[in-house]
């Protein structure tokens, strides 16, 4: 069962639709108790960085997510803003991020001027997958739909599991242990997204005691 964290931002229906099509069990919740019992998590989201962090804070989800992800090592997949929230900070906002990966979120062209580049980057882009990763098959075509004005900047090259090119090469996906983040929208990317969700659903769940209902 995959728990999709509903913190009030973004279009979650399309993720549920695709998982349902694949026969992958999922539930949609913003309830901290249910998130605390999740065996696998998706952190979705579309919108502004500070809004995202404020909503997680307001719903009392930050500590529970930290415990479940950092301590219990539950596999988690961040999508778009959800993945950006996993970084330390974003040039879009003032609030600190969750800081699960050694990365920042920066605006397109914030480190190199490209006056002709239209931002947001909106459309389909092929990924290159530099190494082995459980999330993406290295030798398959990987074509995904992107809508974003900001992207990840990882400290460690080994955390980068996919690179895309728009004006210049940028990190399209990262992985640090059980933590995965993708900038693109697998839920809107046909069979390419379906393959990614299937691989995420097939990841083994760590053998940790689930907290009892009491």
């Amino acid at each position, binding site marked *: 069962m995959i728990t999709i964290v509903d913190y009030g931002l973004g*279009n979650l*229906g399309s993720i549920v639709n695709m998982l349902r099509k694949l026969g992958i069990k999922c539930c949609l919740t913003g309830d901290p108790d249910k998130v605390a019992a999740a065996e696998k998590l998706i952190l979705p989201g*579309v*919108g502004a960085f500070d809004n995202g962090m404020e909503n997680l804070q307001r719903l009392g989800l930050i500590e529970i997510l930290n415990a479940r992800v950092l301590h219990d090592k539950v596999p988690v997949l961040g999508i778009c803003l959800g993945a950006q929230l996993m970084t330390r900070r974003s040039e879009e906002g003032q609030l600190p991020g969750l800081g699960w990966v050694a990365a920042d979120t920066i605006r397109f062209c914030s480190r190199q001027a490209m006056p002709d580049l*239209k931002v*947001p980057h909106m*459309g389909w*882009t092929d990924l290159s997958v530099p190494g082995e990763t459980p999330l993406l098959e290295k030798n398959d075509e990987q074509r995904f739909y992107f809508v974003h004005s900001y992207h990840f900047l990882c400290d460690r090259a080994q955390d980068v599991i996919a690179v895309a090119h728009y004006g210049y090469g940028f990190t399209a996906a990262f992985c640090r242990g059980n933590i995965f983040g993708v900038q693109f929208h697998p839920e*809107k990317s*046909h069979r390419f997204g379906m393959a990614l969700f299937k691989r995420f659903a097939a990841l083994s769940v760590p053998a940790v005691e689930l907290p009892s209902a009491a």
Partner: protein
Amino acid sequence: MRYRVIPVLLLRGAGLVKTERFKDAKYVGDPVNAVRIFNDKEVDELVFLDIEATVNDRSPDLEMLRNIAGECFMPLCYGGGVRDLPTIEAILKTGVEKVAVNSALVENPEMIREAARIHGSSTIVASIDFKRCLFGNAEAVVRSGRKKTKMDPVELARRAEDLGVGEILLNSIDRDGTMQGYDLEITQRVADAVKVPVIACGGAGSLAHFHDAIHKGHSSAVAAGAFFVFVGKHRAVLITYPAQEDLKRFVFRS
């Protein structure tokens, strides 16, 4: 570099139609069935426009949108009868991720500014229809082409960008359904005037037309209607979409 190639499907009642110069709507099929076919063809994105909602003062058919969105594993945009913020919210709840606005651009611009602020720029698409006038100038029109705005499409596009829309769907009424090629001059003028992506629409009949819209008209993406639903000179209804290899060879390459 890839460019989006987007079918624009017109809703009238519960069916899909295709027009020529915004007239002579011909029935081309069932919307949910069309979505399934476009899924199989791995289409980049779909736009649905209800061409009668605004002129008949009707709200979007949310039940139909739910059925469409539930089958659509690609980005999906809906336009038609989008008058206020609650309507936009209701549309997004069905699983559609982009909402196109046309008449509201001139009739209720502050609503659009607010919608872009709340839901994010990339959620709101300005759909701008234009017509050539007697002496070759172009004028933006609203209400399914029935109401003049006295504005050049460039001016309306700049206003829309200022209101915070994330992209512009630019549609030539004179070329609609003709399959004779895009209005490249106006496409280029609008694309060069704004920073947000412009999607060229109206007139596509071949891959060469797509190529021209991007490389001569400077559009960021291309859209078409008749090209994806008709084949042959008798315009038999058949849903098609170009193969990726052909797009790479004839459209993406400069």
